[in-house]
């Protein structure tokens, strides 16, 4: 076909375009499958007959559906407490992080603040260095924050990224709003709580969701700080223990099942696998539940990773 025949060129072009389309659709279907299937797999196993799931026989759909596993895990010593700690640190940590980020973001826009620029940099520059885990641990130890619930909270309150986001947002709010408050005699704090706080709610919501997920997912601080007590183990931490210490898990399970359920059939008695899968679902679930609300914050959220101070 000569190059002067536009119809021929057109045909060729649309053909390769279509091939590209088909390949793209298939490849992304594979990506999507790879991302979804593990969650689905673990979920169907957690509600299937335990003797089958333990031997890897439940692959595509649940077999012998029951929900006993979710009742069984509540009887494992320490698990309910871990759930309580996880929820508590998420709620307290998020609330403090958000309100402080909003307040400092606002304060750093106040032209009247003494040495404003210096203190702003003083806070923001901490994003770029890190003393290392041992000096950090020794500091926490000195402050009495090891083996202490507040060890989860205090170090996480100040998040420079979030403060930058709030400051940028506050700067976009018309100055007249604050001026009006000032004329009416409101002080610095009054302006924040009565005028700015309601206005900056959208950015606070974004931060709240990211901070909550970070708190919920946190694992390393339990590992580093809670060295001589189980009291403050989080769900993430106990899940990791269950995966790594199959033997001690078996002991835990036998202590829960032997007494409680005489009629427990083979399909319903807790196994190491069933406990692992069920706890995994429990730990994933809260993230999954807030995930739909997340999405509209994505583009703003990605800024959290690549923001300019």
């Amino acid at each position: 076909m000569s190059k002067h025949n536009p119809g021929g060129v057109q045909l060729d072009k649309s053909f390769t375009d279509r091939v590209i389309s088909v390949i793209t659709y298939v490849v992304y279907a594979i990506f999507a499958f790879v991302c979804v299937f593990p969650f689905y797999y673990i979920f169907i196993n957690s509600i299937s007959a335990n003797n089958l799931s333990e031997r890897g026989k439940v692959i595509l759909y649940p077999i012998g559906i029951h929900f006993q596993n979710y009742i069984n895990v509540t009887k494992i010593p320490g698990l309910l407490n871990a759930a309580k700690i996880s929820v508590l640190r998420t709620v307290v940590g998020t609330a403090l992080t958000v309100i402080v980020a909003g307040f400092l973001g606002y304060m750093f826009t106040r032209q009247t603040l003494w040495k404003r620029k210096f203190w702003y940099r003083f806070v923001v520059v901490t994003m770029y260095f890190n003393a290392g885990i041992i000096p950090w641990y020794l500091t926490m130890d000195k402050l009495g924050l090891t083996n202490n619930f507040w060890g989860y909270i205090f170090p996480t309150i100040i998040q420079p990224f979030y403060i930058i986001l709030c400051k940028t947002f506050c700067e976009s709010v018309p100055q007249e709003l604050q001026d009006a408050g000032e004329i009416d005699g409101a002080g610095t704090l009054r302006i924040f709580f009565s005028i700015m706080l309601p206005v900056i709610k959208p950015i606070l919501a974004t931060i709240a969701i990211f901070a909550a997920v970070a708190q919920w997912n946190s694992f390393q601080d339990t590992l580093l700080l809670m060295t001589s007590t189980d009291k403050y183990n989080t769900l993430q931490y106990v899940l990791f223990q269950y995966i790594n210490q199959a033997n001690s898990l078996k002991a835990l399970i036998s202590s829960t099942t032997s007494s409680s359920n005489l009629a427990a059939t083979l399909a319903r008695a807790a196994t190491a696998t069933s406990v692992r899968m069920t706890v995994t679902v429990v730990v994933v679930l809260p993230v999954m539940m807030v995930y739909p609300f997340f999405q509209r914050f994505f583009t703003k959220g990605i800024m959290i990773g690549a923001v300019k101070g």
Partner: protein
Amino acid sequence: MQIDPKKARSYREFLYILPFILLVAVFSYFPLYGWIYAFHDYQPPKPITAETFVGLKWFTYIVSNPVRTADVLRVLRNTFAISGISLFFSWFPMIFAVFLNEIKCKPYQKFVQTVTTLPNFISWVLVFSIAFNVFGSNGAVNSVLTDMGVISKPISFLKSKDHLWFKMWLWLTWKNAGWAAIMYLAAITGIDEQMIEAARVDGATRMQIIRHIIIPSILPTYFVIVMLNIASFLNNGMEQYYVFQNDFNRKYIEVLDLYVYNYARSSIKNYPLSTAISMLKSIVSVALLAGTNAVSKLIRGESFI
């Protein structure tokens, strides 16, 4: 005595933020003081005194003690390998975004984006749990392969050092690629639609549009990502490697951050040496950050910090 009301207010406002400044000082700045442990023969819980001061002993120890030297070189090799693979494949999220953008069926595009971003929001412990449940000896993969007769006994994917660095990259990508792609998708949306339309009218194919318009337009974003990647070359973090480590792969999975932790926790309890290593790491990291930032200023005329 008359106090200037403006000044008074400016100090009062400082008082409002003072508690938070103190938090920053205590949790971010004060730990830096802990670096002095690297210059002492520190044996917790005994406090450090003038007598325990040993100067640069622990720093020279790293190079003078053959066992430590070998250890540190091994850990550096792992760090360089794992960060190197990430850097080498850093184009992946960009290409992922470019072709995702080519999907014309919007609901499908949205669906793919939604599900591939999800893993970013789960913890490494959950990623490991998934790995354990799907790739373990009774997991989906082994049981399907056995049923199909491909293998006769389960493969221990997790308890092996084979292709470990690449596997670590795969997990990292599984977790982060969808999220990282969002930034590129945002950059692509910013491209002038008229430019693409003009190219199409001129007879450009889709691949040509991608090559000559879309990719050049998002390269600046990619450039920043590469710079950030280089800046954090030594900072792999320890969480991913901590959860995936076991006796079979430990020699290959220990990156600097994990090594510092493992070494401090080991029976030796050598806090000073661990501190010395992490101190060197921090200094090199800050230098890398400053360096890449300078390069960025030079090339793009814009810094990223």
